[in-house]
């Protein structure tokens, strides 16, 4: 055992991680030699629970896989079940869902940039971003009536329609959000103290990003143009013009820029969709029993590719419901970024992948897959951690 090396446990209760997760950092001075993730604190067993519930009940369970990307998960699930039913939801419902998905992305991205600012100790920016995020929350409240769990996406459509009044207000708000975001983007890419903390930090090279199966903004910030909305269009995404934003910095700063750009892009999408909404019904009746079959469904959640696999056996309950949330896909990448960084950079790097462990942990456990050069065994590490906590 090397005495000079200190192990800092980050988590499970730690302010840098809004959710419980455990990272063991092996440090030497201020340098991190290695990071070992330990998920599972948020494991609830949703996949098992889904198999004893009806498809309707699972709608709400899927929404609560994650409170931030609730629309994305429920959209992915509903889309899968609708495919099993071989039905097309009405075009108007598709647009309403699309608008909701983008609003979801807006609030999630603004939230993330705020959290990132907090991690680098820039609380003022955090406060401003969250203040402006409330505009988006108000919009969501206006459309759905609720702030976080909307209960809005139903099998076969949506629960409520967007009235012209609402549309006008949403459009007005989108302009404000876009202006503010443009300002923040300009500010963030010029403010010296932000640049110092984010530029060249948490490098993920394009080839590593591909090899480690990263997804979402993390991948796009490594200059790889890959977006489920473009590659595998769902809803009405193939009817709407939008750009897949990339940035070639491969560091935290470019992740920030990608988030800002996606916010701007999302406001444009919402405005376009509101202008081009087809008329007609917004909901269709759906039977309770779903025909047997299997389906893989995926959407671009705010954090990246979200993929659901549903297997049905012809009853009103699914036989297997599998969720892969984007954060899990980005964990190997974040371990790569963490090695050889500074302790002070750990929070921002961790935050850099926009982690959402509640999505991730619904079934998964990770425990130190970075074995190389590690002088402690897993067992020793665990014992050390236990001892450390007992002393407190």
């Amino acid at each position, binding site marked *: 055992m090397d005495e000079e090396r200190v192990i800092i446990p980050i988590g499970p209760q730690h302010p840098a991680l809004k959710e419980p997760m455990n990272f063991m950092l092996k440090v030497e001075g201020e340098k991190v030699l290695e990071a070992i993730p330990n998920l599972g604190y948020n494991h609830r067993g949703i996949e098992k629970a889904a198999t004893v519930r*009806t498809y309707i009940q*699972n709608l*709400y369970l899927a929404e609560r896989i994650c409170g931030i990307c609730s629309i994305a998960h429920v959209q992915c699930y509903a889309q899968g079940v609708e495919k099993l039913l071989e039905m097309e939801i009405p075009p108007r419902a598709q647009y309403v869902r699309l608008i909701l998905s983008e609003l979801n992305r807006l609030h999630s991205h603004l939230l993330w940039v705020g959290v990132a600012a907090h991690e680098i100790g820039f609380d003022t920016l955090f406060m401003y971003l969250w203040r402006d995020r409330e505009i988006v929350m108000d919009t969501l409240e206006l459309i*759905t009536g*609720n702030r976080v769990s909307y*209960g809005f996406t139903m099998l076969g459509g949506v629960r409520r329609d967007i009235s012209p009044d609402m549309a006008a207000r949403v459009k007005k708000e989108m302009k404000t959000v876009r202006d503010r975001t443009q300002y923040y983007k300009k*500010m963030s890419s010029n*403010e010296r103290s932000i640049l110092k903390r984010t530029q060249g930090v948490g490098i993920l090279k394009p080839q590593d990003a591909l090899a480690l199966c990263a997804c979402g903004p993390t991948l796009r910030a490594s200059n790889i143009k890959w977006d489920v909305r473009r590659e595998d269009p769902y809803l009405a995404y193939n009817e709407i013009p939008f750009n897949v934003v990339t940035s070639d910095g491969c560091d935290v700063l470019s992740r920030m820029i990608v988030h800002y750009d996606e916010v701007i892009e999302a406001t444009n999408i919402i405005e376009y969709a509101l202008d081009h909404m087809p008329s007609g019904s917004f909901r269709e009746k759906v039977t309770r029993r779903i025909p047997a079959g299997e389906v893989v469904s995926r959407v671009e959640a705010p954090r990246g590719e979200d993929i659901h696999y549903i297997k049905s056996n012809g009853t009103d309950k699914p036989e297997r419901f599998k969720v892969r949330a984007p954060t899990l896909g980005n964990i190997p990448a974040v371990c790569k970024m963490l090695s050889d960084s500074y302790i002070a950079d750990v929070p921002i790097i961790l935050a850099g992948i926009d982690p959402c462990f509640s999505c991730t942990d619904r079934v998964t456990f990770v425990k130190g897959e970075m074995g190389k050069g590690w002088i402690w065994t897993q067992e020793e590490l665990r014992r050390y951690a236990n001892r450390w906590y007992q002393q407190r």
Partner: protein
Amino acid sequence: MEHELLRNLRKKVATEKYPFIKKKPPEGLRGKLIIDMAKCIGCGLCVFDCPAGAIEMIGKGTAADLKVYLDRCHFCGQCAESCPSKCIVYSTEFELANFDKKNLTIEFKRKL
């Protein structure tokens, strides 16, 4: 950034003085649920569809009473969706904080 700070110094504070000044709840906010027992036909669909098991049925059919556990309710609105006689309504009352869990159970009894 300094400019933005000074601008905010002049601007009105964004805070709403919530518990003292209350704003109108948005339309469609799902708060505490209310069941109109006069309309209830006792079909039990709400109990069947509730994802959290927050509604309990005491007795059977048209004579049944309903018990709602607000500490389990997720305010998802599925019961109101499923109810064939549309007797479940969500009020906009969301200030439900309570010191005792028992107070969060509401019973809806039929008037005889």
